[in-house]
Each structure stands twice: as structure tokens, then as C-alpha cells.
């Protein structure tokens, strides 16, 4: 599928990544859930924006994150505000996602809640555990990992998230 193009803005210090993601949620007794699509992530320090697209590159949902709140905008224009993005994302991909952690992991950095950190020869984190998520980071380029796998087991529910970076 097509990941949406990088989100351009005037701020040159922004960190942006585009690529593809897959989420699988399995729980005994309920039908498994899966989503596959493209993503575009832009982090200008204070605020972040995440676009999630379908296989044709059409953006289905956009999440705008600022310190005080997060806003989910759907393709039909409807908007929803919440204190943070994790819960909002659950409506789009079927599971909450550790956005604060992702903000760091995408840049190959460790988040404040990280434990059991393993580092590769370039000194960058290759595995860690954070708030119940087991995270592995690989295929590093100078900017950060180009492959992130997140797994969480919460009683019987298992969530697997895979992110592959295709470009800036």
C-alpha cells in the first residue's frame, strides 16, 4: 500500500518518517482484528502529526498531538479530542498505541519508561520493555530504526505492531 507522502512544514528541525504499518490484535473468544496501511509521522518537538492511510495512499485518519491534548480527524472531517493520542488511536487501529514511546523509538532513542534495554554495536537501542510493550528496533539508518516491532500481552489479549520505514 502507499504510505502518505511526508508531511512538509516550514520547520526544518522536524523529524519525519513515512512507511507502512500492520497491527494484529488476537484475543480468545473474539474475532481477531488486523489493520495494514501506510503512515506518515512528523515530529516538530512540541507537536506531532500522524497520518494513517489505506493501501491506495488515501489518508483515512490524522492524529494531531500537542502537550495538552490530541485530536483525531477522520477522512469525513469529523473530529474528536482526547487528553492523549493513545486512546484515540484505538478507534482507528483497534488497539491503543504507545505514542510517547514511539516518538523516541522512531529516532532510535530510549523513552523514560524503558527498562531492560539492549544496545547494538552502534550504541543504539535494539530491544527494550516499556509499559508492558516488548519493543525491538532494527535496520538502523543514520536517523533511526527502519523496522520497529512492538508486542504486548495483556491477560489473554495479544497485540503485535510492525512498522517499516520507507522514507523520510
Amino acid at each position: 500500500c502507499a504510505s502518505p507522502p511526508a508531511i512538509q512544514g516550514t520547520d526544518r528541525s522536524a523529524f519525519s518518517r513515512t512507511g507502512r504499518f500492520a497491527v494484529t490484535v488476537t484475543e480468545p473468544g473474539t474475532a481477531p482484528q488486523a489493520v495494514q496501511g501506510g503512515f506518515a509521522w512528523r515530529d516538530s518537538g512540541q507537536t506531532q502529526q500522524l497520518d494513517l492511510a489505506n493501501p491506495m495512499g488515501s489518508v483515512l485518519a490524522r492524529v494531531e498531538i500537542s502537550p495538552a491534548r490530541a485530536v483525531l480527524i477522520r477522512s469525513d472531517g469529523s473530529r474528536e479530542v482526547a487528553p492523549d493520542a493513545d486512546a484515540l488511536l484505538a478507534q482507528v487501529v483497534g488497539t491503543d498505541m504507545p505514542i510517547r514511546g514511539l516518538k523516541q523509538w522512531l529516532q532510535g532513542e530510549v523513552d523514560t519508561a524503558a527498562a531492560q534495554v539492549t544496545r547494538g554495536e552502534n550504541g543504539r537501542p535494539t530491544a527494550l520493555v516499556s509499559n508492558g510493550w516488548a519493543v525491538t528496533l532494527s535496520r538502523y539508518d543514520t536517523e533511526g530504526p527502519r523496522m520497529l516491532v512492538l508486542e504486548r500481552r495483556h491477560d489473554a489479549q495479544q497485540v503485535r505492531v510492525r512498522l517499516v520505514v520507507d522514507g523520510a
Partner: protein
Amino acid sequence: QTSARAQLSQFNEQVQAASGKFSQQTETQTGETKAPQTGDFSFKRPGRFKWEIIQPYEQLIVSNGRQVMQYDPDLAQVTERSVDESVGASPAAILFGSGELEEAFEIQELPVKNGVAWLRAKPRSADAGFQHVDLGFKDGLPVELKLLDGFGQTTVIRFESVQTNPELPDDAFRFVVPDGVDHVVLRQ
């Protein structure tokens, strides 16, 4: 130049199968684009199609007319859903899917532009995920598709070296799930 709608119905009747290449690129409102995806497509009515992105990464969407499978080797996941829920999921579903375009879309003729006759298809369902898709026809064949999403981004897909009614074996649209991947069957 016959109208796009006439060329579409001619295409639906006379072209029972086809194969060719495509290039797909998405552009933001402010004109930013990314490297295009290129690959091969084929279809065989009713409802069987294959949409295979080869560059810059691999991704496959295959329909046997009943189920649509989407496989991404990097993401190690195969999603499987019924045909009727996938109309917005791929251009192939729009052009070669089993349903009639008129069922899922409101059709409107657009002006001809340098030899290409255009029509605009607006999805009847609100959650199709895009505002409309324009289809360009020339000599009875689709040559270009432009899809406008809800955030002002346009995906342009060009079809090239299209062969009509080639000999395609039925198992050309069979997909065997490789081992070691998540295979999730979605039931709405």
C-alpha cells in the same frame, strides 16, 4: 471520442481479462510527492484480480472473486476480507471488482482532456475513505485513475502496456499464505 461512461461499459463487456503495469503516486495538497510505487496488475472477470507492488517495496493484493487477501512480506501479515468490503481498498477493486461501478458509486461525465475521456465516481457509502475517484479512458481502456482523499491528497495511478483478454490460468489468482506470518480473516 466516445464518452468515458460508454468506454467503461464497453470495457466491462468486451474485456473479460487484462494484464499490465501500473505506477502509483500520492501528492499532498501542497504538491509534495514521494517515490512512486510500480508493479503489475491482472484481472479476470468476475471479480478476480491481482495488484502487485514490486518497487520500492513488495506488497500484494489478490482477490479470487470472493475474498481479498493483502500480503506485505516486510510486515509479515496477511489480511483477508470479503470482496464487498474492499471496494475502497484498491484501485483494482474499483475497476475490476465483481460489483458494477454504478452500484457503489455515483457516476458523472467530465470534459475530455488531450484525448482522454474522464468520468468521476463518488462513493455512495460515507466510509469509503476517499471523496471521489476520476477514471480516464482512451481507446476503450482505462489509462489513468485519480483518487482524492479526505485530506486533499491525490493518488494518481497510471496503467501501462495493458494486454486485453490474455490467457490467464484460474490459479493466477490463488494465494497461499506463507508460513511465519500473521494471517487474520476479518469478519465485519
